[in-house]
């Protein structure tokens, strides 16, 4: 896939929001053939995938870095580097848009688990209800992290390509 990313044109029939994308996938899962062309178009457009998922990933990661590092710039730098290494390791040398998004999610999930465990272990004393809430959050975060890694591994293992038929020309686009 080319590294050049063209932003989706205005008025394109691509889903504009997360809700529309989720709706499209649900329709495709239910066997609605009409949902497939826009879905293929979306997945074949790296800019559209990055635009939809990238913002969410960036927001989540920024929130987590702020929560974990606060004003500590040294910690921020260290965590930033660790995240960059993890991102590069997970995404691989030539990631597709979906692989990139799944890798970003895995990085965010890793930071969430790391942050929660560090805060929980660092607290000297806390009330029982708060400790229980922490435990629940850690369990959920860990489950999400494992699920993120599993999804990335699955997509990579199956080596999925999405086929686009553009007029008479058939273009094979790697879309995962």
């Amino acid at each position, binding site marked *: 896939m080319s590294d050049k990313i063209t932003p989706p044109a205005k008025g394109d029939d691509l889903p504009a929001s*997360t809700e529309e*994308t*989720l709706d*499209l*996938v*649900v329709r*495709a*899962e239910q*066997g609605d*053939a009409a949902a*497939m062309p826009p*879905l*293929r178009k*979306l*997945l074949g457009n790296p800019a559209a*995938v990055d635009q*939809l*998922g990238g913002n*969410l*990933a960036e*927001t*989540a990661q920024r*929130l*987590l870095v702020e*929560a974990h590092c606060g004003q500590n710039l040294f910690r921020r730098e260290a965590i930033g580097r660790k995240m960059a290494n993890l991102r590069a390791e997970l995404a691989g040398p030539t990631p597709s848009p*979906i692989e990139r*998004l*799944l890798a*970003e*999610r895995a990085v*965010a*999930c890793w930071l*969430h688990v790391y*942050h*929660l465990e560090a805060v929980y272990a660092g607290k000297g004393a806390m*009330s029982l*209800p*708060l400790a229980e*809430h*922490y435990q629940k*959050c850690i369990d*959920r*975060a860990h489950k*999400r992290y494992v*699920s*993120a890694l599993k*999804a990335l591994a*699955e*997509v990579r293992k*199956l080596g*999925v*390509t*999405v*086929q686009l*038929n553009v007029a008479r020309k058939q273009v094979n686009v790697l*879309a*995962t």
Partner: protein
Amino acid sequence: MSWEQRGGQSYYYTARRVNGRVVKEYVHPLVAPARALVDADRRAMREEAAAELRQARADLDDLDAALIALDELADALARGALLAAGYHQHHRGPWRKRRVRQDNPTGEGG
């Protein structure tokens, strides 16, 4: 715990739960002001702890919410990519390639 007016006089009562029922207890007027201060102090501490707990929970839930939104979208797009590539998942099992008929090479339409 409250001050109650009875016949022009103020009396301090405490309340506690016994077997699910609220039982009020009379406090002697000599120790009532001191007891009221101690109770108010305890109540303030309880309220402070509850507010701390609420804040801590809200902070944890905010982080959770940011990840849930990302999670939903990433999962949906991954599923969409697999579907668009001709895979299907039966009852949350492994993803399998759909059998493609010769006259329908994209595997669309069921």
